[in-house]
């Protein structure tokens, strides 16, 4: 049994040493043709929290996501990896309709959350985004106090009727984001004055404060140093107990460390999805293998 870390670091040499994919023995199909773009592996799970079916995304004429079907399982961390520009962010942003804010963007297909298609006109994005929160690549605290940053969501959704309720929400969220001890004495100071890693945890706390069910993270550590990154990864592992998490990352080590399932995107196609260990040790698609062995991207 190897740990995720060993897996991540040892992966490259190991799978090259193993040679071509023909030795794969887990059953199921193996795709050696790089031009074959159908999804292999296990994109679906038994009790999905979110399930996307045949999702296509267009930016004006540009077809950015091709017919992607993928599930997010309850209380799991799904990592999305792939070379940059392959559409990871675009797909992630479909899941809470953040693409609505891009005028040129058009999304088709079904994305089921709580038994309803979030793309249907009946759905109101305000409660949807409260339930499906988002953490961005660059920490983006509001230029307000730390307290007000966390209280923001609670205020706009009317979650607290009294000041003490608001205080509880703020303290609870900061505690769950592992930031409380660092900031409890300076809640009135601006959130923009924190370090990069603290800012990102503040943004996570801000998202948690509105009690979402799903948290989407778009490369949350790409602007952070290794120590701050380690803290966030720890936090993600902790949050998994209560939330369903989808994380985009450009670091395969990170994907191996924090996720249970991994999805590999390539030029707008979902190439392979499945159990993280399986995807990294015995990829079934030639393109996935190329990517995780460092031959591509």
């Amino acid at each position, binding site marked *: 049994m190897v740990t995720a870390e060993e897996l991540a670091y040892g992966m490259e040499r190991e799978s090259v040493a193993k040679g071509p994919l023909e030795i794969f023995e887990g059953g199921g199909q193996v795709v050696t043709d790089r031009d074959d773009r159908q999804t292999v592996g296990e994109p679906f799970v038994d009790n999905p929290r979110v399930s996307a079916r045949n999702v296509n995304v267009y930016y004006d004429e540009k077809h950015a996501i091709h017919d992607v079907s993928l599930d997010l399982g309850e209380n799991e961390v799904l990592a999305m990896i792939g070379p940059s520009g392959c559409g990871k962010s675009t797909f992630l942003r479909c899941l809470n309709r953040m693409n609505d804010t891009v005028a040129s963007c058009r999304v088709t297909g079904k994305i089921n959350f709580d038994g309803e298609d979030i793309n249907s006109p009946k759905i109101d994005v305000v*409660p949807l*985004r409260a339930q499906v929160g988002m953490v961005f690549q660059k920490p*983006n605290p*509001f*230029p307000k106090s730390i307290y007000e940053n966390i209280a923001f969501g609670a205020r*706009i959704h009317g979650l607290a009727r009294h000041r003490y309720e608001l205080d509880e929400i703020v303290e609870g969220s900061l505690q769950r984001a592992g930031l409380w001890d660092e900031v409890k004495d300076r809640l009135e100071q601006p959130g923009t004055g924190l370090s990069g890693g603290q800012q990102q945890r503040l943004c996570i706390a801000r*998202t948690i404060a509105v009690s979402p069910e799903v948290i989407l993270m778009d490369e949350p550590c790409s602007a952070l140093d290794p120590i701050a990154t380690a803290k966030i990864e720890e936090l993600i592992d902790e949050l998994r107990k209560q939330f369903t998490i989808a994380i985009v990352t450009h670091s395969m080590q990170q994907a191996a460390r924090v996720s249970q399932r991994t999805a590999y995107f390539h030029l707008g196609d979902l190439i392979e999805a499945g159990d993280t260990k399986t995807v990294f040790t015995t990829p079934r698609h030639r393109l996935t293998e190329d990517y995780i062995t460092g031959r591509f991207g």
Partner: protein
Amino acid sequence: MQSTTLIVVLLALSAAGFYMGRRKAFQVSGNDIRTLNSLPSYYGYYTAMWCGIPALIVFSLWSMLDGRAIMAMATSSIADSGVSAQEMSLVYSEVLRFVSGSTIGEPQPHIVEAVARYRELQDTSNAALIVIVLSIAIAGTAFALGKIRRDQRVRNSVEAGVMVFLIACSTIAIFTTIGIVLSVLFESIRFFQKVSFTDFIFGLEWSPQTAIRSDQVGSTGAFGAIPLFAGTLLISFIAMVVAAPIGLMSAIYLAEYASARLRSYAKPLLEILAGIPTVVYGFFAALVVAPFFRNTGGLIGLDVSSESALAAGLVMGIMVIPFISSLSDDVITAVPQALRDGALGLGATQSETIRRVVIPAALPGIVGGMLLAVSRAIGETMIVVMAAGLSANLTANPLEAVTTVTVQIVTLLVGDQEFDSAKTLAAFALGLMLFLSTLVLNVIALHVVRKYREQYE
């Protein structure tokens, strides 16, 4: 005419110097310009500078000083005959009149003599000027050409020359400003010798008519500036009440809601408002808006004066809308998209995002824009001259006529005035106060705007 020719000749010589310097550089390099310290054209500029600049300096000093020197020499015999200084200045102006031929009649013999001498000296001076300037130019060129060697670091000399030139230009701008400020300051001090400073600053009555002859009845003049500043504030306040919300709202619409296409039409259209000459706004205010208010007021039984603070303030407000909207639009668009995404991602609606995140983040910049607009409104003259009236009422009623600092400055100085009466000097004192208040506003505004800029960089 003659000096124009001389300058053209100098320029031509410099151009020739440029080519000679460049050619010399090629020669000393043995046709391999890589062995030169600088590019050949720098040697050209170097030569041209040595040719033109010393000659130009001598030329301008000469032209500045020669008139006075010639006059002194031409009239020296008259001065020696023991005439008082005052009479001498009469002699000077008479000689000048005859020299320029702008007078008729028979001059006195000593004047005729001085005029003849003056003409003679002037011809000599002109001839000398040409010779001296041209020889300096040629000497400079020769000097520069003589100094051209391979390792001559002309690039540095040329850069230094460029820097000196730029310093000279900015010095002119700065010294002009300082000169204006000082002259206003000194005239104001003269005013405060006639009217006490506290009477001016705290006086409640403004009627600047003073008796010209001591036996005239009536006004001794009252120079209390309070009514003027009150009028200015009232009108600026009305203007901001109109412009601040409209400007800010239209900026928010343009920055956050409008499609790129609409924005590309609407923004320039709004900015056209800033290009309308204020005199046009002025007669619009006086001929359209003010009568409209008077008539409407009459219909509902209000007594609206035909020149009202309301009309002037309203039109001035329309004038400053583009200031506010375009500055606010800039600061709102400068708020990073990431902040909007953060708020939207938490489920905030667009207007919540704007109200709770974008505007607070942009607020310092918006306030700065408003302050700039206020200082613009305070200094505005044309609209108030035409639409606000001249009567210095101390009132807060926008339906009455009021007057402003700028209007009073205009009326104090229009027409024939003695330049040392308290009435005229009052204009300088008012100007000084106006200058100080807009200066303070601008400093605060710029400070606020700069502070805001630092936040995201």
